[in-house]
Structure formats: C-alpha cells, structure tokens
C-alpha cells in the first residue's frame, strides 16, 4: 500500500472511520498500530517481524539503560543497540555493496575471488526507522528524554504508517508525548490534512511521475546520445522530479497524520529558493539534516575545534549522509559535492562577512540561482546510472550548440514551465509558508484549487512509479 494507490484510498478511509469511532484511546492506538503493520505487510509480510524486533529490542534496552547509573553499563546498552540497528542496516542495505567492493579491492591486489551474489532484499523504510530508533536510544543515553513506559506508544512511534517507509524521520521527543491523551483531528486539522494529502499526491502523480520523470529517463537512460539541451532539460526535470516525489511523499505523510490528530514536523521548506548551501540543508529533507547534525556532526566535534576540523567534520557528515541515500559511490560523490559546497560557502562567508553589499537583494537572488545551479549539477551523480554516464552528461552540458536530440520540444516546454513555476513559488514563499498563503484565500477559492488537483489526479496517465526514497 502506497499513498498513490487505490488500495491506500480504501485502507485510509477504513482506518480513519475506525479512528473516529468512540473507542478508548488505548484501543484507538492499538488500531493504528495494527493498521500500520498491515500497511507495511502489504509490501512484504515477513519483514514486519524485523520491524517488531527492532521496536522491542530498543524499547527494553532503553528501559534497562535508564535503570542503571553505571556509565559503563549504559554505554554497553547503547553500543548493543547501535551494533544491532546499524548491523541490520549494514547487512540489508550495504551487504552487496561491501562484498562488491571487497571483490574489486581483492582483484586490485591480484586476488581473484568470485563471491556468490547475495541477493538481499532491502526492507522498505529500514533507513528511516533505524535512524528513528537510534535517535531514541541516544537521547535516553544523553538523558535528554526519559524512556517511555508504554510499548504500545513506542511501537506506534516507530511504525505509524504515514511516516513509516519514507519519513519524515520522526524524533521520539516530538511524537511520544502526543500519545498521552486522546487525539482526534479538529475540523481544521482534517480539512487541511486531507488538502495536504491531495497536494502531495498531485506533486507525486502529476508533476513528478507524469510530466518530469519520463523526460529525465529519456536523457539519463541514453546519456551517450544526449545533446547539450537534452542534458540540461533532463537534469532540470530530475531536479523537479526528486523534489516533487520526496516533498510530495512528506506532504502526504504530514497530511495523513494530521487527519488522525498527530503532528509531524516539516520536512521541506521551499529548498530551491535557498541562498547558499547551509540554507539549502535547512530546507531540504530537514528531518535528516537535523538528525545528521545532532547525532553525527556535533558528536564529531562540530565547529568547536577550529576551522580545519570543522571542514573535516562537515565533509565526513555529508559523505555519510550521501551513503545513507544508497549503497553506491555515486551517492557518496553527491554527498561529497555538497560537503565541498558547504566548506566553500563557509570560507566565502568568512571573507565577505562584513561587506554590506552581500545583503543586496539582487546579489542574494543571484546567489540563490547559483545555489540552484550547483544543486542541479550534484543531482547528475544522484540520477545517473554510473560515473561514466554522469561525467558524460556533465561534459555534454557545457558543449555547444544548445540543441535537443532526444527530448521533444513539447516535453522541454513542460519541464521549463514547471521549473519556472517551481522556482517562482519557492522564491515567493521562502520566508512564509503554504499555510500562510492559503489562509488568505476565500473558502470557495480553496475549493476550486482542490477540485483542480482532483481533476489533475484523475487525468494523470497512471504511470506506476514507486516513490524514489522508498529505495533508501
């Protein structure tokens, strides 16, 4: 069951009706937990066990950790959890990658070793729920939060179906207190929650899948035959596709949770209007950036040990952040590129920190466009099939003449139109929010907007594509 399916519509309606019936709060939470396990089992039933084991182990480790005052024992519990969670993540997500690299390394030193293909299935959402459970254990270890007493609440925190498979990465401290008292959506929460669900679906089904993905595929699947225009249009298409795909999923998740009265934090905030890369990472996949900052960058020393060490910490964080996205050196390169951007920005900020002209709006706009341009270049490594086609496309982008050979003019017009609309919307709302804009619309205008979104969804050709972040 995924948000962009008919079975989800049926599932969501049933669960919503069940949640609105006059059961006790504990029963309602139990219903949500069972529904979340069913949601997950709809993909691959056996992996529900993995989810249950992960929840049970960390719940009890956190309790035992809290019972002891001995620092060494607390550390043992933490390390046990980290080894278990990262071990599972490592096995399922990086097993094949590590083996492949080992074989290549062995070949480099003259050892011919042919390993059997491990054929490991990646459990859906493992990167997300592993990070959620790790953050809980670390927060208990740091005594930032107390271990939660109810296993039902903890299991629901980890499993709650809106955020289960592709985030946002929820923190225990944000979610668990919401389990204390009965939650039922107010009329405004339900109305806006359903609107967010619809907006997210429109972003995914119409913009990402129907209009942008086929163009990105055309350019990237035949990188060797792409002309300069194809490379640019394909890359702009992918930059839009990945935003609408992932932000669309997050919007659906936030909206679906709100329909049950649960609040999830923002995950995207108009990132393509970012002025610089630290700004970009405060707007793109905010729950991951926040996680990497709190549990990786700061423990590495953050910016507390001089400029050079700060740069090393930044680069390490972004390289690992890149690897989190997938078991491939291309993602590491993508992370490395962003790490380098962040370091370069830091150096430039030190040089120009006292210059008044750095605050001029025209310059800020140019920096925002430069940021978008450099982000687009980094997406080439994210989307390309391999390094060879990534470099091929990057080279093609700077060749002349600017012409199209693979992408049709109609598709190019769609991509340019959507990109312009995307940048304009992000620019206009970068210091505001969608909610602020909608607040000023009369009710009938909102209704027209929602009706258009529904018609758009009904007319979408229905190309069946999984959410990109499902593979992470």
């Amino acid at each position, binding site marked *: *069951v995924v948000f962009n399916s*008919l*079975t989800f519509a*049926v599932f969501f309606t049933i669960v919503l009706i069940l949640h609105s019936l006059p059961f006790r709060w504990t029963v309602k939470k139990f219903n949500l937990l069972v529904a979340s396990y069913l949601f997950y*089992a*709809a*993909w*691959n039933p056996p992996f529900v066990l993995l989810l249950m084991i992960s929840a049970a182990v960390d719940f009890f480790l956190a309790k035992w950790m809290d019972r002891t005052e001995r620092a060494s024992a607390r550390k043992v519990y933490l390390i046990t959890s980290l080894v278990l969670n990262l071990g599972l993540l490592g096995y399922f997500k990086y097993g094949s990658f590590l083996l492949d690299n080992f074989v290549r390394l062995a070949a480099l030193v003259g050892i011919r070793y042919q390993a059997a293909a491990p054929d490991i*299935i990646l459990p859906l959402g493992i990167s997300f729920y592993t990070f959620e459970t790790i953050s809980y254990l670390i927060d208990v270890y740091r005594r930032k939060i107390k271990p939660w007493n109810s296993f039902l609440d903890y299991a629901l925190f980890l499993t709650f179906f809106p955020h289960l498979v592709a985030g946002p990465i929820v923190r225990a401290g*944000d979610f668990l207190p919401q389990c204390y008292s009965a939650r039922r959506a107010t*009329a*405004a*929460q*339900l*109305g*806006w929650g*359903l609107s*967010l669900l619809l907006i997210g679906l429109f972003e995914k089904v119409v913009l990402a899948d*129907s*209009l942008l993905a086929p163009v990105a595929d055309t350019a990237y699947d035949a990188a060797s035959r792409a002309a300069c225009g194809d490379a640019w249009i394909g890359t702009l298409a992918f930059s839009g596709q990945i935003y609408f795909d992932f932000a669309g999923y997050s919007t659906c998740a*936030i*909206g679906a949770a*709100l329909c049950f009265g649960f*609040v*999830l*934090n*923002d995950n995207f*905030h108009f990132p393509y209007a970012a002025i610089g890369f630290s700004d970009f990472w*405060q707007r793109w996949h*905010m*729950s991951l*950036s*926040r996680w990497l900052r709190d549990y990786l960058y700061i423990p590495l020393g953050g910016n507390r040990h001089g400029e050079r060490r700060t740069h090393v910490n930044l680069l390490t964080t972004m390289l690992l952040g890149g690897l989190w996205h997938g078991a491939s050196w291309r993602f590491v390169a993508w992370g490395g590129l962003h790490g380098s951007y962040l370091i370069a920005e830091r150096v430039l900020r030190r040089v120009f920190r006292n210059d008044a002209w750095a605050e001029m709006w025209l310059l800020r706009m140019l920096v925002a466009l430069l940021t978008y341009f450099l982000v687009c270049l980094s997406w080439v490594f994210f989307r390309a099939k391999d390094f060879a086609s990534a470099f091929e496309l990057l080279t093609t982008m700077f060749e002349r003449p600017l012409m199209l050979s693979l992408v049709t003019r*109609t*598709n190019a*017009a*769609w991509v340019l139109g959507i990109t312009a609309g995307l940048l304009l919307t992000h620019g206009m709302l*970068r*210091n505001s*929010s969608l*909610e*602020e804009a*909608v*607040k000023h619309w009369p*009710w*009938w205008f*909102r*209704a*027209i*907007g*929602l*009706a258009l979104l*529904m*018609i758009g969804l*009904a*007319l*979408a*050709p*229905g190309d*069946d594509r999984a959410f990109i972040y499902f593979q992470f």
Partner: protein
Amino acid sequence: VLSSTSNSNERLPTGPWGRTWLLAVCLAVLGLGLGEGLWRARGFRPILRDDADFWCWARSTVKGHDPDQVVLIGASRILMDIDTETWAECFRGRKPVQLGVTGSDCVPVLYHLSKDRTFCGILVCDVAPGGFFQGIYPRSGIQAEYVKKYATRSALASEEQYLRLLVQQASVLRQPEIDFREFLPLLVWHGRLPRPQLRYNTILPDRSVRGDYTGIDVAPIIERGVRQSQTAGPVAPEQLRKDLSSVEEMVTRIQERGGEVVFVTFPNSGKRRAAEEGLFPRQRCWDILAAHTKAITIHYRDYPDLARYECPDGAHLDYHSAVPFTKALALLIKDKLHARSHPRNTLQVCGSS
C-alpha cells in the same frame, strides 16, 4: 524563516473546511463528468491497459499443484487467436490463464514456470519464429521484466489491479489515448482535440485480445509486419541445438512434475507468411524443434482444421475465426494428451466424452 521543528499544525489555515471540501468534490465530479461526456461524444470508449501489473495479476491466478491448469504463453498470436470463452467451454468451464505479451517470445515465461515447483499444468507456448529461433534469452526482454516485477510485487498487488480494472472499465478518462500531456499542447497550440483511433485489438478483462478488423485498412499493418519480419534470420545450427537443449531442460522440469508443454505455431497468411517462411524455413527451425523436444508440437499447417483460416493482417485471426480455431486446437491438444496416456486424459473436451 521556519525552524526545523516547526509544523503545519502551528500554522493551520482555519475556515469552513466542510463546505470547502463539499464544493471541491462537487466541482471535481462535475468537471470529470463533463470530461467523460465530451470524450465519449468524440467516440472514445473505455479500454483496458495491458501492462506489467495486469500481467502480474494474471500470473497470480495460476494455481499451483493443479494439473488441469492451462496457461497460455507467447506473443500477440496466442493473445488474439485463442478465444478463452470457447476454450473454457471445452475444458470443464475453466478458462486458461492468458500470459502472452505482445512483441515478445515465450521463453522467459517458460523458464519462469519451469522454475516454479508448484506448477504442474498444461503450458501452451506460441512459437513465433521471429523470437524463438533467433536465440533464446530466458532472463531478458519484456517478459523477463514482467517476471521480475511479479517476484517483487506487493502483497496487495492483485487487489490494486482489480480496482484499477474497475476504474479503467468504467471511465474513458483512464484510456491511454486521452493523455493530457498530448491533448493539452494539441488544444493550446492547434485548437483541436484528438480523435479516437480505429482499433482492431480490444483487450479483455482476462488479458486476451479480441481482433476485429471491420473497417480497418489492413494494408499498412501487413506492410509493417513484413518489415518487422525482415530480421537477421535464425541462429546458426549449432547455436540452435544449444538453445533447444536449454528449452528442453525447461520442458523436462515441467514434465517431471506431471505437467505438459505444447509448442504451437499459429497461423499466418499472405505476404507475412511468405516473409516469415522465407527467413525461417520450416526444416531449419520448426522441424528441428519438433524432432528435438519431448513436448507436444503442433504446427498449424499440418492440420487442415487449423490451417483453413486467413489472418486479416497476415499474423492474427479475427474473433470470428478465433472461435472455431480455438475449438479445433483444444480438440487436437486433447487427442495428443490422450495419445500419450497422459493423466490429464479425463479432461472433458468439447464434443467428446
């Protein structure tokens, strides 16, 4: 700027949401209803989409451990030439499962079902010379993609496909010819909307295809088919023997479980037949397969009851011919199974005891 811990609930737009949603749904229903009417008035009708999900749904209906299960695999000829209703009348009311895929060959699905230890039914394979004798690739091509998708489909994929079929059957807006990516630019730049194409192949809910060439100019279809037939020809004899040995391993696996495999060459006519027979001479292709395999083999030209039909486009039967052709083929297969004293000789085939 919002913080990383801000949320939508803090900024919740208030207002009469009940009224808003009611109006939105009414407007959407009205808009879609008008669209539906407009497209239907232009001659469009709902059609089903034959894609990987539809194939996976059909595959999921293949029952394991069922010796009476009949599965049809191959390309467009088996999709159009077999009338599944007629087949069902012949085989105790049981329809065959239609797993043919247009523009492909049967080997990847033959391989897939041979590896499925629960499959012990009758597998009818459409041997289109263009694919089968040009080198076999059990793990590549469109059918292999479908097989891969089947292995990784979600537990609710069948229910999802069932709902999709309901929507596709009910609404003209879901049909592929009405694609807003195509008609919006056409409308904006040329001020017109598309007209429906005259279709000769209608996809039915069991995935079989009904051919109806009434009013169709078949000459361009025949020419296209002849052009497509102008390929490299069969592989070298040594390679063919290797390929057939691989195929035979698949056949043997199914037969060892009590199943049966039937290779069939379906009718072709006119220029298309001349082109195919010129490029893939029977004695260098089909006869070698027939001599090499333990499976049942049926070449339509060997049986007058199968050979008396003309293919309007040179390669497929229309639905008028598909009905008697299916009866004749079903009878023949039953006879062949009887001749082998096959355990499945209890099958009640049409007109015979």
